[in-house]
């Protein structure tokens, strides 16, 4: 369970303070598929980054499974990013010179699993339908394929939470649909998914839509 309380992120631009997040309150139960929507600049990415400890809040707290994120040691932060959450970015963020297999294996290696990782990597690649392309270089793949590699990489360590920041932002509708299908499947398989999007159609595939505006949550609705 993720519990966000009074979360703020303040930037000081020149002399003026600017709140990218302004007292966000949010509780996400295990197994939910939450879509975070809102206009550009409303603070969606900032929220997601703080939940994934890619960014540090200036106020408030985020508690994941009972642990306050700011209390974690640097080592625990690394372990958290490695095992508890899996990140998917709009621009894929792959190692372009590595093979598909190499990209997916990376989190396992960083977790200290240096033996034969075929079983896990292949399972993740099959899940996203790219097992056949294991040995191709990441940069030679299409955008949709690259994003599927990124998803495989995000799930290879079997994290509880998938954090996806506009995963379809760079993709056409056919590819977007494939990505959304995968995310829905992952959610059905028990993963908690938090996805930032400003596409209403994609958001509709989640089971809860949180809308943000000016760093605040303005709407929070469950869909059947």
């Amino acid at each position, binding site marked *: 369970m993720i519990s966000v309380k009074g979360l703020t992120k303040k930037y000081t631009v020149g002399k003026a303070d600017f709140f990218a997040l302004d007292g966000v309150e949010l509780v996400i139960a295990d197994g939910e598929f939450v879509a975070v929507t809102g206009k550009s600049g409303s603070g969606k*990415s*900032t929220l997601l*980054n703080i939940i*994934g400890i*890619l*960014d540090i809040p200036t106020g408030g707290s985020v508690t994941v499974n009972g642990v306050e994120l700011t209390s974690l040691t*640097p*080592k625990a932060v*690394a*372990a*958290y*990013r*490695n*095992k508890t959450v899996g*990140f998917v*970015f709009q*621009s894929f*963020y792959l*190692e372009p*010179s*590595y093979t598909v297999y*190499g990209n997916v294996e*990376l*989190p396992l*290696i*960083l*977790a*200290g699993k*240096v033996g034969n990782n075929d079983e896990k990597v292949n399972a993740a690649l099959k899940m996203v339908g790219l097992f056949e392309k294991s040995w191709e270089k990441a940069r030679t793949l299409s955008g949709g394929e690259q994003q599927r590699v990124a998803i495989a*990489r995000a799930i290879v*360590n079997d994290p509880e939470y998938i954090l996806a*920041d506009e995963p379809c932002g760079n993709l056409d509708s056919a590819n977007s649909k494939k990505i959304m299908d995968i995310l829905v499947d992952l959610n059905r398989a028990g993963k908690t998914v938090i996805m930032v999007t400003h596409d209403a159609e994609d958001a509709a595939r989640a089971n809860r839509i949180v809308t943000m505006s000016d760093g605040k949550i303005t709407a929070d609705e469950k869909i059947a």
Partner: protein
Amino acid sequence: MKKLLKLIFIETSFLKKTLAVILIILTAFGAALLAVLSVLSDMPRGMIAGIDASKRYYFGLYGGECFALSAKEQTADLAAELDAEFCYGVADGITQNTELRKGNNIFLSDLVTILGENEDKLEYRVARHGYFVPADYADKLPFEGASAASGIWICNEIANSLAAQTGDVIYLGDSKATVLGVFDRNNVFGNYAADDVVVPAAWYYVIGAEDVLFDTLYFTYPTAKTVLDVYKTFGETAGLKISGILSEWMENIAVVQTYYSYLAILLGLLMLLLLYALFSTFYRARKTQMCRFKVLGATNTAVTAIYLTIALSVIVLSVLFASVLSVFLSKFLLDLCSRLFTVSYPYTFRAWLPLSLLGVCVVICITMFVLMQWRISRLPIAAEVRYE
């Protein structure tokens, strides 16, 4: 470790190779220069002593290896100038080109064992192959003393090695000399300084003299800060006066030493700066990738380890390269220096070279590790993710 190897194995790119080559070349060049200069800053410790008619002792310093050459000529000049009764020359490299022997078949053994001060066994390998030594001087040197061409005093180790006694004739190349006596190499000055010791007018031949004599003196007078101090203190303790001419001369050498130390320090700093610049470039080029690794759960140490191992391989290669380079460079530089400053360079530089290189490497590694840990822990991941 395996994790690291696995990562490094998959982590190869053109950029890194290019950077590696630049780093290798620059580090190598710098390390070689530094090694040479650090050696030069540890200038010569050969020694010459003279005594004048009123039984005053004179001491001087010379570079180890070329010392013999200079010592012979300069000692002779000096001896003449000072009207000395004897000259004392010390050199390690005397037998480099020509073998010392007794008769036609007893040669100085390759390894001469010497009993040091605390009964430590010191082994001196007698170098037979000159490096920067003109081939002809060794033939004449110890056998044509300033005052006595007829005889030579040898230290007990040489006597043992050659099975030579007082009265025997020993040879160096084609020259020969009668052994006038055997002396205790650890206490050679003690012998002279003792009351009423009649100092024979002859050359003294000693093995490993440079180190032992100097170090013995040095440790005897631990408060002495410079080489000059050591000899001054010795002179005073022994109730001797140091000649003005020689003091001045020694001071000049001290000045040259200081000059080289500054140069070495400057070059060292310059090299670190250069490495820092290179490191920064490397860091900037790899920043996005470092962020990616961190997003995927790499610890700061893991990230540092990945890049540092790459850097280290580069450095190891650099050192190999530097070793080769410095041999050429040092010959060139040392020759140049000895011509420019009319000083000679020490025999010990070959021992110092790898040590200096090792030192350079250790400094580089530690600096890089600290720098990388510090910078990687402050990587602005969110900004990097946002703008990619």
